[in-house]
């Protein structure tokens, strides 16, 4: 007889989500629903009627962790719609920004995920805030990596968080040779730190994978299952590092393969909570007797690629472009660490190629005729697709398919077969960033809104 347990809210990630889990008598998840309970931001509606210059800046405000990815995806979707090619040097600056964003985001995720892990050879959970060695120097190293990423973002993007420099048609300003040298020095400094850090993280993650039991942070130990966090869904990635847009000679993302269903049709119906655990770490689970109604409470649509959910993120990129094949929650975590070095080498290469006196703005910026433009930017957490239609310089239609939206249904599948007490470890492996993943437009083949049930 299966029971229903609810972990709400889940912790140590961006945004608000909860887990509604159907578990068997052994506590193994039979069906897992992981859903966003972050309220809808309404960015897509806000953008309509705004100028094409304004909309990407608004959409970047959806969150403060990957605003660079949202800015770039938004801008390139607009450029895709109006058919504007940007100068090479502007592209190089954007690549540097992309690397800086991925670097500081991955480093931040390490802080969030480390409390689940153990110091190898001991049964002690890692507390990244302890003043004691060896963890202290790891924390300092993470901070240094984040500082490097954000400083480069600040120099190239104009702001440490929401970049002001990218614009439709390229960038507002090129950087000076001095700034170029400064970025170069920072990257050279960070490169060696990152290699050390990557190796440390992979050791820790593999150690976790090899343990017979584990616990969430300071909670109690539970026996792990084989194939922890495995799922059978496919992967989707547009590029190993940067992205793809409809202006590419060979686009690597296909809007016609994308469909969306309502959370109403995807998540479980109303459930009575029949299992609770007052000793669950951080906070108790929801007391038994309460109700959970995932299909009504979820604040995302469920995007599909070829009619099925797909995983996006570091593992999807490595799997599609480098034949990476490690499955499970730790497979995804390890893939994330393996992306560190690419951030550095790609940024260094772009800096080398950058001509600081080159023009960074297109000579002509068309105003658009309302055709569809899209950009699939490989944000730290995965493929961030923005789609837009611009006519006479104004946004007519704007849609954001952000990484964690793609990952919600996949991760829900990956929960199956794991002990429910460790479900959060799987969720955190996806590095969820939920603020932007609140997307509610569901349309049928004739582009009519069919999500009426939600609005009732």
């Amino acid at each position, binding site marked *: 007889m299966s029971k229903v347990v609810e972990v709400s809210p889940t912790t140590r990630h961006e945004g608000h989500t909860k887990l509604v889990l159907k578990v068997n008598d052994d506590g193994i998840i039979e069906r897992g629903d992981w859903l966003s309970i972050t309220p809808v931001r309404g960015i897509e509606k806000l953008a309509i009627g705004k100028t094409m210059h304004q909309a990407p800046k608004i959409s970047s405000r959806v969150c403060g962790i990957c605003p660079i990815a949202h800015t770039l995806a938004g801008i390139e979707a607009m450029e895709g719609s109006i058919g504007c090619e940007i100068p090479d040097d502007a592209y190089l600056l954007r690549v540097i920004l992309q690397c800086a964003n991925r670097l500081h985001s991955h480093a931040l995720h390490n802080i969030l995920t480390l409390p689940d892990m153990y110091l190898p050879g001991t049964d002690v959970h890692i507390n990244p805030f302890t003043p004691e060695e060896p963890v202290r120097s790891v924390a300092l190293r993470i901070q240094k990596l984040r500082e490097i990423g954000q400083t480069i973002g600040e120099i190239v993007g104009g*702001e*440490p968080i929401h970049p002001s*420099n990218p614009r439709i048609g390229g960038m507002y300003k090129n*950087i*000076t040779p*001095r700034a170029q040298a400064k970025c170069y020095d920072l990257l050279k400094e960070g490169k060696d730190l990152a290699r050390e850090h990557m190796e440390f993280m992979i050791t820790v993650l593999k150690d976790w994978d090899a343990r017979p039991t584990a616990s969430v942070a300071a909670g109690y130990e539970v026996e792990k299952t084989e194939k922890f966090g495995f799922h059978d869904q496919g992967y989707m990635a547009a590029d190993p590092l940067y992205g793809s847009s409809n202006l590419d000679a060979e686009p690597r993302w296909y809007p016609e393969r994308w469909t969306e269903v309502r959370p109403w049709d995807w998540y479980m119906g109303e459930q009575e909570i029949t299992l609770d655990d007052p000793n669950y770490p951080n906070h108790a689970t929801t007391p038994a007797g309460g109700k959970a109604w995932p299909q009504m409470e979820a604040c995302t649509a469920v995007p599909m690629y070829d009619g099925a959910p797909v995983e996006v993120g570091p593992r999807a990129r490595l799997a599609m472009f480098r034949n990476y094949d490690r499955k499970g929650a730790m497979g995804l975590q390890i893939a994330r660490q393996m992306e560190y070095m690419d951030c550095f080498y790609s940024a260094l290469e772009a800096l080398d190629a950058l001509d600081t006196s080159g023009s960074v703005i297109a000579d002509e910026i068309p105003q658009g005729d309302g055709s569809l433009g899209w950009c699939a930017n490989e944000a730290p957490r995965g493929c961030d697709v923005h789609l837009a239609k611009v006519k006479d310089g104004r946004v007519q239609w704007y849609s954001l398919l952000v990484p964690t939206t793609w990952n919600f249904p996949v991760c829900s599948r990956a929960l199956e077969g794991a002990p429910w007490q460790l479900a959060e470890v799987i969720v955190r492996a996806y590095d969820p960033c939920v603020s932007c993943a609140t997307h509610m437009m569901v349309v049928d083949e004739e582009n009519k809104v069919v999500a009426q049930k939600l609005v009732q």
Partner: protein
Amino acid sequence: MVLGNYKTAVSARAADAEILKCSQDGGIVTQLFAYALEEGIIDGAIVAGPGEEPWKPEPLVATTKAELLAARGTKYTISPNMMLIKEATRSYGLDKVGIVGTPCQMQALRKAQLYPIAMRKVPDKIALAIGIFCMENFPYMGLETIVEDHCATKMESAVKMDIGKGKFSVYTERGALSQIPLAATHKYEQPGCHVCLDYVANLADVSTGSVGSPDGWSTVFVRTKKGDDVWSKAVAAGYFETKDIASVKPGLDLVTKLATGKIDKNKKTVEERASFGVGKGLRNPYI
């Protein structure tokens, strides 16, 4: 306290003949920035560089002595130096920024440091702020009218402009000098200058201007710990010739007199503005 807080006041001029050749008075700003650049106290300075039109300055981030030299001399129309303060720390990649400005620009700078709204990661990168004495400023078209119409000199021909001893003077490259009484220029002043209650850049690290010192020399107020540190090192290293301010004519008395004059006059404007129109007085920018 019309002269603000200061640690020391001296009369000084640059020791570098090249700087003095084209400087307004004592070449203090150029020399102090040049020293700070050489010593790594700053890695760039925002100065009033040459613009597209003659005597219309444009803010410039100078990272070499040559760029500093190109920005020598006073331009009597505004150079919006604060415009670059953020950009200097971004695409210019500076960590230690120097900036020169009028008293109002120093106020803007300190306000930005105190309330860094839209100025994230900027306040801690201000390494040296040099203020210049300022009685008032002209909009570019006003300056053009003064020089071209009143002084009958083409803007392109002017090599130096100066205000002193009650006169506005324009020197041309052919050696001609054209002077008009300062009173004739008052109507071209920017109205905003008439509510300013600061003559000697009270909020700068170091402030300087010609008033109070003999020709070719400048009066220098060293105001902050940071300013004192840079100034005393530069003097010790022989970058400046200095004279005791008490020993020179006309000395601090004149500075005090002019500062008091400006402040008293402008206080009246502020008061008048409070009851300007019917029931819609203009705000006092100082409260």
